[in-house]
């Protein structure tokens, strides 16, 4: 065993010296390989972390949201429908929601204006949802309350992204142009915690009264409804009953919301795979060419090795170690860099693509959900194919006669 280990070490010594003799070519390959692993690992870490975080955060989403659809588009929901839905068996409660978008031309950003559900304001369960004071400290007061100031007509509680973008804070004023052209000024009563930016960056909490004044929505309409169901296993049944009673309604159940975020950033689907497969294909061609198309120097090297007594199996072992040295070095560097990129630098490489046309983008730190399964998948996707691609073509070269290998140099 000891002899075998010593032999392998000599082969590795020789392999690394041989790689270092062709520095530019091999370092180029290593850099490209590391980059591929880095991109693949970053994508995998990012998508898994965001999907996992979404599933944990959105488990508190409403069981059923009911929209009204007119001519294929989301329309205002008549308040008179509420009683119809309440009368459906299995429905525990129905709550109306008022929410919409406001485009701020000053900073070219879209805000989401939302009226907090009145009944929840007093719920003790909301105590963990805190708003942040301007100095950044967190108060332990319930939601909609900051230093004694509650959300009242003429005030707003804004998301941290809005505060950052507009450079405003508590007690500043923010003007809005209402539906009739009148200007409405709102005082900022508080800023939502920066910790919650992933869900609240562009949010603006506003009273129902102000929301209706701003958008000209009368009391007989709301934006949509949320429905709570007595028995969680009956959610789909209740949703289908809603659809039956109100054919112009569109119920969206929590599972659909969760599934939306499960399919988001799917690196095995959509445009991601098209872009990524092109990069991987380019690398495969490069690696195959490098591994199979032996240069004259390499061919002569094999010839000399065989002439001085190396066996075919030794040459193949040497090539195995060559593949292993390159691929393992690239794997470890790529994975470590990807982790730092995604969880320490906020995915700086992906940022321009993720931001897209948004001028308001949340600053959020992803919780690093990484497991051994991901690392194993990465290993088998990157290290194994390259190592195999290096060995298979070398079999042919290693079995040729040393004399002809040395003669066929092409030089």
């Amino acid at each position: 065993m000891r002899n075998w280990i010593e032999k392998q070490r000599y082969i590795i010594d020789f392999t690394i010296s041989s790689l270092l003799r062709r520095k530019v070519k091999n370092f180029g390959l290593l850099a490209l390989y590391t980059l591929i692993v880095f991109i693949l690992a970053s994508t995998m870490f990012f998508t898994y972390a965001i999907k996992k975080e979404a599933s944990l955060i959105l488990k508190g989403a409403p069981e059923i949201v009911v929209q009204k659809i007119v001519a294929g588009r989301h329309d205002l929901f008549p308040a008179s429908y509420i009683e119809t839905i309440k009368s459906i068996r299995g429905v525990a409660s129905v709550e109306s929601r008022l929410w919409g978008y406001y485009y701020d031309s000053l900073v070219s950003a879209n805000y989401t204006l939302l009226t907090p559900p009145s009944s929840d304001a007093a719920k003790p369960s909301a105590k963990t949802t805190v708003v942040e004071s301007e100095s950044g400290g967190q108060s332990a007061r319930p939601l909609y309350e900051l230093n004694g100031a509650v959300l009242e007509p003429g005030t707003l509680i804004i998301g941290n992204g809005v505060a950052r973008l507009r450079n405003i804070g508590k007690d500043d004023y923010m003007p809005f142009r209402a539906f009739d052209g009148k200007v409405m000024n709102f005082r900022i009563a508080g800023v939502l915690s920066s910790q919650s930016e992933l869900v609240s960056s562009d949010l603006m909490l506003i009273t129902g009264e102000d929301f209706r004044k701003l958008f000209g929505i009368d009391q007989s309409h709301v934006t949509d409804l949320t429905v709570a169901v007595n028995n969680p296993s009956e959610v789909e049944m209740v949703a289908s009953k809603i659809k039956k009673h109100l054919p112009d309604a569109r119920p969206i159940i929590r599972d659909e919301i969760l599934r939306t975020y499960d399919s988001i950033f799917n690196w095995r689907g959509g445009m991601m795979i098209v872009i990524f497969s092109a990069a991987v294909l380019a690398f495969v061609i490069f690696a195959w060419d490098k591994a199979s198309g032996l240069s004259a120097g390499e061919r002569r090297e094999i010839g000399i090795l065989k002439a001085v007594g190396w066996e075919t199996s030794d040459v193949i072992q040497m090539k195995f170690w060559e593949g292993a040295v390159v691929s393992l070095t690239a794997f470890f560097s790529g994975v470590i860099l990807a982790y730092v990129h995604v969880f320490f630098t906020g995915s700086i490489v992906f940022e321009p693509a993720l931001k897209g046309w948004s001028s308001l983008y949340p600053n959020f730190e992803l919780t690093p959900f990484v497991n051994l399964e991901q690392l194993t998948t990465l290993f088998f996707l990157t290290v194994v194919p390259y190592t195999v691609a290096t060995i298979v073509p070398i079999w042919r070269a290693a079995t040729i006669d040393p004399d002809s290998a040395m003669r066929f140099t092409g030089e």
Partner: protein
Amino acid sequence: MRNSSLFFLYLSTGVFFLGLLLMHASFSAKAQQESLEEKSALVKALQLTDLCLFTEARYTRHLSQADLNTAFQDHPLSLEHFPSGSFTQPPERIIDRP
């Protein structure tokens, strides 16, 4: 030092750092539990339905609430033009359609 020793030293360092990263991931996930609960509580208290990931258009801001014909809603021949559109897949009912 022999090349093979350097290589195995590098491998050991790589494995060590990967182990550290896994430990970091595990500890961070525990440490950020409170922050996750805060976000979940906010979602529950405000009855939110979506993550604030893409604010560029109404149907990318609230992906789960978007119209059924979202990708072509601007005009009949309009293809999806926002970069975020390429990160999401069509709904299952469209993928699974026979």
